[in-house]
């Protein structure tokens, strides 16, 4: 798992053992430990708080009810993250949120432009991210934050590796465009100069 993932957390073996035994207290401690990571991931992938809430509920419920299926091959956090990713993508498909937007390359920003996200504040970047198409936003997040490879993303989406690469490239371009100030947004000083 990528070191930057919010899921990069250790869970005590004793807690996992109790969780497997159906201990609700152990489950609550796991929930509290991962609620922010799971919520953030669900929110980033689905782009909607109401859907993310369903994802959080369903994924955590599965984690509780299927804890016995966790064999310890991978970190528990990675197993839990997979549940959240699966639920999120399932919700996207189920709720028909998973609309593939056709990018018009002509309208996309210039690749060589400076990276506007370096100077954007968190709220602006957050808003721009939410304006991305679902696929692009999810791929961007899985790739950059959760550290998924294109192969893994393609598997999660049930699509090809090319799909993942294409969504990443186009999503990045679109994000750049969204973060760049529009021409009409810049203050016009010509008029004021002439009238002065």
């Amino acid at each position: 798992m990528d070191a930057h993932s919010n899921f990069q957390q250790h869970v005590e073996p004793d807690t996992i053992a109790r969780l497997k035994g159906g201990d609700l207290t152990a489950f609550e401690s796991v929930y509290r430990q991962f609620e922010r990571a799971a919520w953030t991931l669900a929110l980033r992938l689905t782009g909607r708080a109401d859907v993310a809430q369903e994802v959080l509920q369903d994924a955590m419920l599965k984690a509780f009810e299927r804890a016995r299926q966790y064999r310890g091959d991978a970190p528990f956090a990675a197993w839990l993250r997979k549940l959240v990713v699966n639920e999120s993508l399932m919700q996207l498909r189920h709720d028909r949120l998973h609309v593939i937007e056709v990018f018009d390359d002509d309208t996309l920003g210039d690749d060589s432009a400076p990276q506007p996200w370096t100077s954007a504040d968190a709220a602006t970047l957050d808003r721009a991210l939410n304006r991305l198409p679902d696929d692009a936003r999810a791929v961007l997040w899985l790739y950059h934050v959760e550290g998924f490879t294109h192969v893994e993303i393609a598997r999660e989406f049930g699509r090809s590796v090319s799909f993942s690469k294409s969504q990443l490239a186009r999503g990045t371009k679109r994000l750049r465009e969204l973060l760049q100030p529009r021409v009409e947004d810049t203050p016009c000083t010509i008029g004021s100069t002439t009238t002065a």
Partner: protein
Amino acid sequence: MHDRLDHHGMNDMSDEASLAAALRALPANTPPQEAWRNLSGRIGRRRAVRRTVWFTLPAAFAAGIALAFAWPHLNLRAPSPPSARVAQTSSSAKPHTRPQPDVAALQASSAKWQNWVQSLSHNGAPLDGRALASAVALQDRIGMVDLQLSAARSPAAAAGLWQQRITLLQQLGLLHLQPYAVAEQTHPAYNRVISM
């Protein structure tokens, strides 16, 4: 992650790294406060349902088995057939004399058998196609016997016809008893009929 950078140039790598850093720097979100309450409530409800199912399903299953065994002994059980010794008793009263046909006793016995058959057909399981055809044939034969009885001139002829009618009624009753016989081969009523 061999496929992460394989399609990017140096500029893209810088682009990618800065975007990844910007996205990772976004603060994690906190789920709504009621999320845990909803989740734990959901778990509680599911546990309750599961507990109910675990307790009631075997009980219902056991009750079903018990019902299957007790079915012949319940209210819907096959009514006991009337005693077939009515006519024989009167004939054994005078063992050393020539037996006189007791038409009245046979007539009474026939009426009892008929009541028994009627109660069977009202309370018993519906007959399948083959048994129903046999029942209709038997009823036709009983109708023929009734026709002959109306024209019988001697007590001996009438007694023979009444006895024949009783036999036909018994056969009709046996048809209705078949489902009970499957459920319990040792059913008393069934045995009585067989031994008659």
